[in-house]
């Protein structure tokens, strides 16, 4: 396990939000809200295109944070917060950056807080995702 200094961030990465990715996500969760599913309903509700559901943002992940090396096994997702701005809709291009914002250690457990921000093609902030990940110190 290696943890870089707080503030270290990933290089930007741009995701194209494919309509099929939204559809698969919506179907995997069994969501029925029509603006998640068809463009006419989305436009009637004031969105530019089919809108991504709130937790879809987790799939718009950042590139790896340089120097952050966590054991694959035994990572626990402890907390998750999203704050939303401009909606993410199909065909958007969302540029994300992830940043290590906090590190705390308690016994064998390390709590890492990562923040990912997503900006769309119009430079509007779409979401801020804050994840707390709990890693266990490797025995070896």
């Amino acid at each position, binding site marked *: 396990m290696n943890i870089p200094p707080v503030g270290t961030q990933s290089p930007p990465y741009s995701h194209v939000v494919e309509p099929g*990715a939204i559809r*698969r*996500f919506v*179907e*995997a*969760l*069994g*969501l*029925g*809200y029509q*603006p998640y599913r068809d463009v006419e309903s989305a436009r009637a*509700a004031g969105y530019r295109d089919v809108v991504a*559901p*709130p*937790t879809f943002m*987790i*799939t718009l992940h950042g590139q790896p944070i340089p120097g952050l090396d966590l054991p*694959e*096994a*035994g990572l*626990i*997702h*402890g*907390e*998750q*917060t*999203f*704050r*939303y*701005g*401009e*909606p993410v809709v199909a065909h958007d291009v969302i540029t994300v950056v992830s940043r290590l914002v906090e590190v705390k250690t308690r016994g064998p457990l390390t709590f890492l807080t990562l923040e990912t*921000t997503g900006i769309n093609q119009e430079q*509007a*902030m*779409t*979401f*801020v995702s*804050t994840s707390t990940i709990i890693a266990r110190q490797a025995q070896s």
Partner: protein
Amino acid sequence: MPSLVPIVHRVTRSDLVRYAGASEDFNPIHFDDDAARFYGLDGVIAHGMYTMGLVTRFIEPLLNQGYRVSEWSNRFRAMVPVNRTIAIDGSIQESTPQRVVLNIAVTVENLPKPVLTGTIILVRGEPFADPATTN
């Protein structure tokens, strides 16, 4: 006052395989019992983000009334084993035509404490805020 109905759902292995594909989270502890046991679990568990995503169903009546989520935070308190029934419920802390604040809890059959608790803030008829400047 919006009316919300608890959501009851049995989490199956095929749910988790579909969610793995849709979210591109292919950690094998979410579909492979051998892998889950190798990592010290009794068997396959749900992705935390799958459980959180299912909570979206609970708020759909509010979405249909024109609200949208402006902020959502939750804590994953325990794991959700596959082939268990979960219940998603919540209470309205605040409700105006412009804003609803919900406390939510997800419980698993035969487990005494919630596996997920959180707060969702929904707004209606407001311009989209810049989330980097709020809070």
